[in-house]
Each structure stands twice: as structure tokens, then as C-alpha cells.
């Protein structure tokens, strides 16, 4: 008897291996040279103080983006959903920009990520309250888009009224998303929240699968739809809010990764969650390694690179769906 679940372990194993490889590569690669001569104290310092936080954050943020992207696509039953759809990313951006604008970030480095977390939390609450408990998923999307628009408008206002050009440049650079100059403190701030969010999202997997049959059939199978929504939104808010708060916006990873993984693990949202988290971590780590290798001197930002890779992929998705719908 062959069952589709029989081969479920293999793609996950390969993806875990790929993520581990990318993690090791990220520790070993940088402008200061490849390799880790154990004898040199300077090399050890570079790895421990610069590359380790950067690598840990890259893995965590990539996993958050991939996992939350898969969870939201599964929950909304929409392959074009991305983690920022519910307003979390724009809220975190607004919070961080306000922290820069107010000068709080200059006075206290922690004010920036904390402002981002506060913004992400408030935006999520606003989207949930705007959508209401029993509403259709479309209403939740509309509420997220509305909250995102307000946050984006306020972010532009903050930019417009920035106290000096340096603050404006800082805000713009921050919004582009980067792993540069992050410390272990950033890992400690974001890591636990990201892991908690991902753990919550992973528990929703089997219930997300039942949603494939529609809300009524899922409810008939014993799924508490309101609780599922709360958990998906909270898990996404924790993982993505914490990610954006420490790294800024890293675009397209959450949208693209589930599509990259589906040919290997299938379309069931539950199985996509862990696979997308691993693939997201791999992708962000490799993009960051590429950045360090290809353009070590330039100030090319990680979020810019992922957008440059991701946008053409998005175009390809549109063309493919046009072909499928047209056929």
C-alpha cells in the first residue's frame, strides 16, 4: 500500500540539510576571508561577534517569513498571500520609523526594535478588531490592507517631516531590510518571539489542511474556525513582527518560498509549514552570503536583493496563473 505520507520525511530531511549547510556557509564566508582558522583570535572574534548574530538572525527571519507565508497562504487559501498582508510588516515599519523620527533610537539603540514590536502588535490588533470575530477571510484581508495603508501613510508622513536628512536616510535604509551590524542582543529580542510564533503556526498545520474543503466542511470536521484565525494571526504577528523589528522589511521571501517548495512536498498547507520555514531560512542565508561575496564593499541591502530576485518570480507566477485560468 503506497500512501502519499510515506515519502513526507525525505523532502524535509533534504531541506533541513540545506538549511544547515547555508548556516555553516554563512559562518564561514565574509569580506574578512573564507575559513575559520582556529588559531587566530581575530578570526574567532569575527565569527562569534559579527557572523554568528547575523547568521542566527538570517535563519530565524527566513524561517519566520517562509513559515508565516505558508500559514497565511493556507489559511486564506490564496497562493498570492504574503506575511505582510495583515498589516504586521507596515505596523512594525511605522513603529521603527517613529523611533528614529523621535530621536529615541539615537538615545537608546533598543528603542528601534521595541518600537517595531509595538507597531506590529498595534497593527495586528487593529486589523483583528476591524475585521471582527466571525467575518469571512476576505474581510480579514481587507482589514489588513486598510491597516497597511494607514501605517504606510503615516510612515511617509514621518519621512516627510524628518528632523534632518540623516534621519530620513536612516529610515529609508532601515526599511530596506538588512542583517548588517546586528548583535546577539537583537537575536535575544527577536529569537524567542519568532520561535514562539513559528511553534504556534506549526500546530495549526492539520487544521489548515481541512480548510481546503471550505469553512463549513472544516467546521464539520471539528475545527474551531475562530480559534484557528486567532492562532494564525497571532503566530504571524509574533514571527513577522519580531523579524521586521530587527531586520526591517525583507520582501518576497514569504510569498515566493511556499511556491518553491510545493513541487517537492505537495500542496497540503500543513506539510508546507515546516518545509517553507526551512527553505525560507536557507534562502535568506544564501542571499545574505551572496551579498557578502558579490558586493562586500557596496551597501546593497538584503531586502533589496530579495526583492530583485523575488519580483521577477512574482511576474512568472502571474503569467503562469493567467495561463492556467485561460486554459
Amino acid at each position: 500500500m503506497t500512501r502519499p505520507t510515506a515519502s513526507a520525511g525525505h523532502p524535509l530531511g533534504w531541506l533541513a540539510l540545506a538549511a544547515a549547510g547555508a548556516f555553516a556557509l554563512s559562518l564561514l564566508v565574509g569580506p574578512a576571508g573564507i575559513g575559520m582558522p582556529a588559531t587566530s583570535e581575530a578570526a574567532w572574534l569575527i565569527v562569534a561577534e559579527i557572523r554568528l548574530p547575523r547568521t542566527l538572525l538570517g535563519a530565524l527571519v527566513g524561517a519566520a517569513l517562509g513559515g508565516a507565508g505558508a500559514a497565511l497562504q493556507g489559511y486564506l487559501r490564496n497562493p498570492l498571500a504574503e506575511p505582510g498582508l495583515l498589516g504586521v510588516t507596515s505596523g512594525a515599519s511605522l513603529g521603527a520609523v517613529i523611533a528614529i523620527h523621535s530621536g529615541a533610537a539615537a538615545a537608546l539603540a533598543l528603542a528601534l526594535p521595541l518600537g517595531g514590536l509595538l507597531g506590529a502588535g498595534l497593527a495586528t490588533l487593529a486589523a483583528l478588531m476591524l475585521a471582527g470575530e466571525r467575518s469571512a477571510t476576505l474581510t480579514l484581508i481587507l482589514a489588513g490592507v486598510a491597516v497597511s495603508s494607514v501605517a504606510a501613510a503615516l510612515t511617509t508622513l514621518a519621512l516627510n517631516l524628518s528632523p534632518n536628512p540623516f534621519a530620513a536616510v536612516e529610515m529609508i535604509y532601515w526599511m530596506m531590510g538588512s542583517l548588517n551590524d546586528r548583535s546577539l542582543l537583537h537575536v535575544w529580542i527577536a529569537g524567542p518571539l519568532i520561535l514562539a510564533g513559528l511553534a504556534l503556526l506549526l500546530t495549526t498545520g492539520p487544521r489548515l489542511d481541512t480548510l481546503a474543503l471550505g469553512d463549513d466542511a472544516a467546521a464539520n470536521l471539528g475545527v474551531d474556525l475562530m480559534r484557528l484565525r486567532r492562532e494564525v494571526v497571532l503566530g504571524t504577528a509574533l514571527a513577522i513582527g519580531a523579524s521586521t523589528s530587527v531586520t526591517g522589511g525583507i520582501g518576497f521571501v514569504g510569498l515566493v518560498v511556499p511556491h518553491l517548495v510545493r513541487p517537492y512536498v505537495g500542496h497540503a498547507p500543513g506539510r508546507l509549514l515546516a518545509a517553507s520555514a526551512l527553505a525560507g531560512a536557507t534562502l535568506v542565508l544564501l542571499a545574505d552570503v551572496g551579498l557578502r561575496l558579490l558586493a562586500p564593499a557596496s551597501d546593497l541591502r538584503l531586502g533589496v536583493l530579495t526583492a530583485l530576485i523575488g519580483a521577477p518570480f512574482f511576474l512568472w507566477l502571474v503569467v503562469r496563473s493567467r495561463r492556467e485560468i485561460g486554459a
Partner: protein
Amino acid sequence: MTLEAHGLQVRRGDRTVITGLTLSAVPGELIGVLGPNGAGKSTLLKALAHLLPVTSGQIALDARPIAAWDRAALGRTIAYLPQERIVHWPLSVRATVALGRFPHDDAASAAGAAAIDRALAEMDVAAVAGRPVSELSGGELARVLMARALAQETAVLLADEPTAGLDPAHQLALFDRLAALARAGRTVLAAMHDLSLAARYCTRVVLLKDGRMLADGPPRDVLTEPRLAEAFGIRARLATVDGVTIVVPLSNVPG
């Protein structure tokens, strides 16, 4: 297991869709829920499956208020087949049917796999078990979704237009299956439009119009020419062919 509704009233938005409906479905019955479009058939099934808030009245399953049931236990007791035939992702046929084991949490075990295999065979979709549902015809998809409900192996089955889109052979096979389930002690309700299938297979017919119960009884008492004229506004003839009652709608009643 007995499923009862007493003085049921259901509102959807500003409209009262079900008014003062009382119904008791007991094990062994195959009940056809009939009525014109918009009569409240789907709403009745959803309310009985505890998927809609009830404005007033009570629904009891096994003599216990349905709201007092634990969700998973309810999923192991009532299977509901929605009228809409959707699968949002191109899952394999087998994976789709396996979702019926969710409330039992045993899709990976031998018992769960056996239930899935039985449902696939009963709905004649075992041959396409490995194919993605996106590649199926409308009728095949309808059978796959029915197989999902059968794989749930519940005491009560509520099916909303289970034969829609099926060819005649599979319509007969489906009702043979539903009748066999009822004979085996299950409680089966099916919203349907085929009057001949109702006359032939159902042990009881509930006729709805404008959210009210017009008639409730054995098919020979309910599916009469005056009643059909009253409910559907049609002139119909009943006949017996090879010992089987058939109902042929002839024309709309003018006015």
C-alpha cells in the same frame, strides 16, 4: 443516533430562512429533504450540522443539545457534505478523502487507512486515488467529496444535493449506498431535487417551502400530485415502471 429539531428558526441576515420547523430523524431512516430553490433545505442541513447559529428553537443529537457537544466528538458523529464542490488546493484524491479522518486523528493508522480505502471504493474513485483533484471532472470531484464524508464513518450523514453532477449510474450507486447505510442503522438526510430518486429510495420525505414544513411522511403520502403542485408549482404525474415509482414533472402550473 437520533437528530431532532424543535421549533427551529434560523435567520440569515435580515431574512428568516427557517420558521417553526420540528423534525426528528431516527436511525434507519433515509430522509429526502425536498423543496423549491430557496426553500431552506441547505440552511436546514447546516443548522442540523451545528454550522449556523440558530435564532430560536433547539437541536438535539442523541437527546443532548447539539451546542453541548464537543467539536471533535461532533465531527465523529455527524458528517456534512456541503453543496459547493470546492477543494482549494490540488491535493491528491486520497489526501482529500483522508481529511474525513481528521476528527478521528487516525489517517496514518491502519484503521484510518482502511476507512479511507472503503470510502474510495464505495464512491468508485479508488482508480484515481493518486491524481490531483484539480484534474478531475465535476462528477468525479463530487464523488471524491462524498467519499470524504463517508470516510468520516459517522452515525449521522447530512448530504446537500449529493447527486448533483453525477451520471445516472453513479446517482443510482450513490443512493444504493445511502439506503444501505440507513439499513445498517445510520441516520441519513439528503437535500435533493430528483423526485423519482426520492420516491424510490427515501424512507421518508420532508417537503419545505419558504422555510416552513409543508409535509413530512413516507414518499407515497408526500409526493402526490396536489402536493407537488403546491410546493413547486408544477403539474407532475406519478407512474410505476418495473415496480419502481417515478415522478415526471410535466409542466409549470400557470400563474
